[in-house]
């Protein structure tokens, strides 16, 4: 069990995170927040790249900083900006990282082709990464994070650069891996986590706002989400009157999805809230950018 025990992180007078308390058992956790909310700070503390200013992070009761290499042995990490050596091939790069992870050469040579196949890079495993696309590099990053069969897998914006097919494959892979490890996935893309995460963690105002299963999160807005169509000319009036969370064009009309504590019009029926509704309600429409 991994516990983030009342952790704060300050950079001088700047507060990056304040009094964060979390507990992780095996399963997938989606860390959902807009850019700049403190996701990466939390991720970096979880992988010992930076240290908490206050509080501590414990794995099975021991401070992860004191555990040192014993903790890192259990870690798989994909940073937001995955760095690589352009003149290396994926196979060579993974072999190098295997050595740093303390994996024997023999074991690594068996495992690397399997992992590269898993992420769909088996055909280019001996090609230099110089000409790889962003999505291919990201897949090398995912493969390296899985090298040591980690008990704690931390992925910071893992789907950046992946196309829809690759995203779907990645989500399937995570679901397969989740039964005997902790997977923490940070993202600002709701669809990345909505179908796979056991729990969603939302950060707001530098601290944890919610840590709940998706169903419970959606219940927070139960009976308060409405959808209706309006003419283009009425759109501006509508926006001023209601807290719209999303809008789209359909058949020459505007379809508004909005939050209201009371039923604004008896002809308008409430709809089932989605995770995206919760996200947009909490962070505002700008958060999707």
């Amino acid at each position: 069990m991994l516990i983030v025990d009342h952790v704060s992180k300050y950079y001088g007078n700047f507060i990056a995170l304040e009094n964060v308390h979390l507990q992780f058992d095996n399963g997938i956790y989606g860390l959902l927040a807009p850019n700049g909310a403190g996701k990466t700070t939390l991720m970096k503390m979880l992988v010992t790249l930076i240290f908490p200013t206050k509080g501590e992070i414990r794995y099975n009761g021991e401070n992860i900083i004191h555990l040192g290499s014993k903790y890192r042995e259990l870690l798989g990490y994909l940073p937001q900006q995955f760095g690589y050596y352009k003149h290396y091939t994926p196979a060579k790069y993974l072999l190098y990282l295997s050595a740093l992870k303390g994996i024997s050469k023999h074991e690594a040579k068996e495992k690397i082709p399997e992992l590269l196949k898993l992420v769909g890079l088996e055909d280019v495993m001996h090609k230099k990464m110089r000409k790889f696309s962003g999505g291919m590099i990201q897949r090398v990053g995912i493969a390296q994070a899985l090298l040591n069969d980690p008990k704690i897998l931390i992925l910071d914006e893992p789907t950046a650069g992946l196309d829809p097919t690759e995203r779907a494959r990645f989500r399937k892979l995570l679901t397969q891996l989740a039964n005997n490890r902790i997977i923490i996935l940070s993202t600002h893309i709701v669809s990345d986590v909505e179908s796979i995460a056991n729990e969603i963690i939302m950060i707001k105002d530098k601290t944890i706002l919610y840590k709940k299963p998706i169903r419970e999160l959606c219940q927070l807005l139960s009976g308060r989400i409405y959808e209706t169509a309006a003419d283009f000319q009425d759109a501006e009036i509508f926006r001023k009157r209601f807290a719209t969370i999303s809008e789209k064009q359909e058949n020459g009309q505007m379809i508004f999805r909005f939050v209201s504590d009371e039923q604004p019009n008896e002809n308008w029926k409430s709809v089932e809230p989605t995770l995206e509704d919760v996200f947009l309600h909490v962070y505002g429409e700008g958060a999707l950018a």
Partner: protein
Amino acid sequence: MAIDNEKIPFPSDKEIKQEIQKIIAKGMNKKPSFWQYMFTMYREVGFRNVFRDLTEIAFTIVLTIAVFAMFVLSTAEYFSWTALDVYTFIFCFSPVIYFVIVFFFFICQKQKPAFEVEMTCKYNVYQLAAFRMFMFSIFAMLANGVIIFWLATEFSIHFPFAFLLSVASLFLFAAAFLYVLLYVPTKSGKIALFISWIAANLFLSYMNSYVYQAFLLNVPYFIYIIIGMAAMYIYVHQLKLFFVKTNIKGVL
């Protein structure tokens, strides 16, 4: 049936604590020593991965030695080196090879694109850095030995004494360098130490060459051995800190 009312002596708090410590100690895996850990790390990571930049290192060393040789040979035409001057030179410049390789290594580390991933591996950048610095110090000691051997053939200096002087100087500097690395989180601190070392020695020898050289030469052998050993001890102690500290502000 008779009830045994005999008192059972209850252990004191101190005894309880001692017994708990014994049980824990027996149950826990024995922590490997610093040297065992270094050896295991080297075995698991391998020479090729520890010294991935071997070509660059070799080039840096050859360049440094070449600059030195040029300096000594070119000045020899205008300045007659006495044995005493050579001892001064050895004490002052013995840490140069070490400094150049280590400094070069830290510059390269900072430019590594995969720094974050490598920092979260079982053997992270700091542990590799500690191992490399240890190897660099051994290499620098041997390289200095070869240079001193060459100097001994050119000038009438006493090789064992000159080598001892060089080892003491190298490890004194290396210990100070690691201290700066760990506790002074600025880039300039590292360069300032090196410049100060050279400048202070040159200044002292220039201001009062006789006293400086007399000090270097009159200190008994065993004092140099003690200084060298103490500096080595401090150096290794500082290296160990690289293993326990996983992120040291300003080191990289």
